[in-house]
């Protein structure tokens, strides 16, 4: 089975550790991962910002580069959801759904002895529909204490360009999310989207919180 890794533009640039962890987890399970270096972006940014023509060109480019692979895996549920829902690309998977749904693996033999809360990002919940895949994986991580996040299914306020075009509203939404994250007493807040973690992490850091954002892939690769 040929599996390609789609880092995403944000992942490749801002979150190399999360992308690397995605590859590590799969390689540890015996899969061979390829990284087509021509890859850039899926087109979601432009689609959401109101530029569908630019988006379609980027998606066409994506499809060309990733043609011929049996599966494409990505650490971003949001990009996967967009490719699948709006551009009809079928064989793309977010890491946790690839593991749990396609490979039927919910224990990756990871060890992460910390208190963790999980923020189910909007697109993982309502577009990509990963269900409880991430929670099943987290429950099997050795030493990990999973704490429920209040108002878990409420948006963190990122929303791509929304975060700067509607910065005041985005920040008010983020403040509520940070309150909820901090109320859990967790050391880490994890999610399936780097961009949401950029927002949550940015908010937590600004208020001097000791809670750190961490992509799920990095927890699964630990130990």
């Amino acid at each position, binding site marked *: 089975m040929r599996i390609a890794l789609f880092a995403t533009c944000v992942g490749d640039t801002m979150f*190399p550790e999360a992308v690397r962890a995605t590859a590590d987890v799969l390689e540890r399970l015996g899969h061979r991962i390829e990284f087509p270096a021509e890859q850039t972006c899926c087109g979601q940014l432009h689609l959401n910002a109101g530029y569908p023509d*630019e988006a379609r060109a980027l998606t066409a480019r994506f499809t060309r580069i990733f043609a011929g692979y049996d599966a494409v895996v990505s650490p971003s549920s949001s990009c996967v959801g967009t490719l699948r829902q709006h551009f009809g690309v079928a064989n793309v998977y977010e890491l946790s759904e690839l593991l749990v749904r396609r490979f039927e693996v919910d224990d990756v033999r990871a060890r992460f002895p910390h208190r963790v809360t999980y923020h189910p990002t909007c697109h993982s919940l309502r577009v990509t529909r990963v269900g409880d895949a991430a929670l099943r994986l987290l429950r099997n991580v050795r030493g990990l204490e999973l704490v429920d996040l209040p108002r878990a299914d409420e948006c963190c306020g990122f929303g791509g360009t929304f975060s700067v*075009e509607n910065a005041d509203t985005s920040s008010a939404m983020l403040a509520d999310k940070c309150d909820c994250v901090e109320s859990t007493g967790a050391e880490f807040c994890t999610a399936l989207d780097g961009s949401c973690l950029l927002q949550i992490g940015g908010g937590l850091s600004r208020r001097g919180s000791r809670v750190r954002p961490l992509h799920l892939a990095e927890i699964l690769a630990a130990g």
Partner: protein
Amino acid sequence: MTVESFPIAARRELANAQLRANLRAATDTIREKRARTVAEVPDWQELRDAGRAIKADVLARLDEYLLQFESAVEAAGGHVHWARDAAEANDAVAQVARGHGVHEVVKMKSLTTDETRLDDALAAHGIRAIETDFAELILQLDGDWSSHILVPAIHRNRAEIRDLFARTIAPDIASDDPADLAEAARLYLRDRFLSAEIGVSGANFAVAETGTICIVESEGNGRMCTTLPPVLVSVLGIEKLVPTFADLEVFLQLLPRSSTGERMNPYTSMWTGVTDGDGPRELHIVLLDNGRTRVLRDEVGRQALHCIRCSACLNVCPVYVHTGGHAYGSVYPGPIGAILTPQLVGVENAPSLPFASSLCGACYEVCPVQIDIPSVLLHLRAAAMRATAPSAKTLVLRGVAFAFGGRRRFELAQRLGRVLQPVATHIVPLAAWTRTRDLKRIPRQRFRDVWKARQ
């Protein structure tokens, strides 16, 4: 009509901490109730499918259903008026009032007449419209306007209402206890109901087959308005039709659970034409277009006309819960307003509304007629960018698209991004980010560098 820019309006509303606390408390309660009563219905998803299918059929054959409705109303003794826009609808109501020499009408809660600003139009003709819904009365007495489809005064609290009533209709009001507030409104309104010669209503549904109009409500003031005065005028958008009486079965299950979280609303009233010795002797029905046929022309956007005004999408929307309804600059706030208003008034007149969403999708999940609000938002965003002059945003995004179009360009942009980041964070648009949030430093090693080193 131009709608105020959402980011600017939202900033003003966000400054009101009391508003946010009121909204959070009210929407939390109603969300929880909705979730509970919806979960009781084993065939909820099938009901949603049916609701969507019926509305799609109505829109596909609207011309036929409207004529069928007109014939049925006239056969039952009612009069039908066709209104292309708000002014024509308001004129139709004013004509009826003037024809009867009436200077005061009683009104039930109606978004459609809020949309046409009927009260102001009637006032210009020297006719006073008395709002009889408790919340609408509050807003009318205070010169305020609705911020929620179902709970128009959701932004006001009890103490404010007591003070308002003491200043206006009930100088001797005892307290801000809900029973005292309701009693004050009741005493004030009862005389109006009994003396009014014309009642004005909207409609939740109108049955093409029979010419029946259906309204659902909680307070009973609507039934007073539609049964006590000898003349009744009902104003409704042309999309309110359902083909048959039996179709109401679907919507009368979907609507109360989605809107108030009740299994059934306290009052459901229906009337078909006029009946001797029972209810109004004269019935006028005003069918309003006001942009709806324009919405109908858009194959993606037209599903906004499926809306049955339940307000479930408002209550689950994290943007609405923070900004409140006034930020949307229209009588239709929240996610449904963000897709309906730009289509009704033209996207060039409300270009910021389709962007007033983080695309979280909570609205689509609860919509009883499955309006795919996120997809319509994306569709309208594209239309908004086409309809407005190219901005700095367009330049930036075109540049980014170019950079993302090839590997070398992309890799160069990544490098450039890292070098420019310390400066860029002080310039628009990133400055808007860093005002409230830190921005992670772009690491020296991209993933592609890590990968190359590992091979």
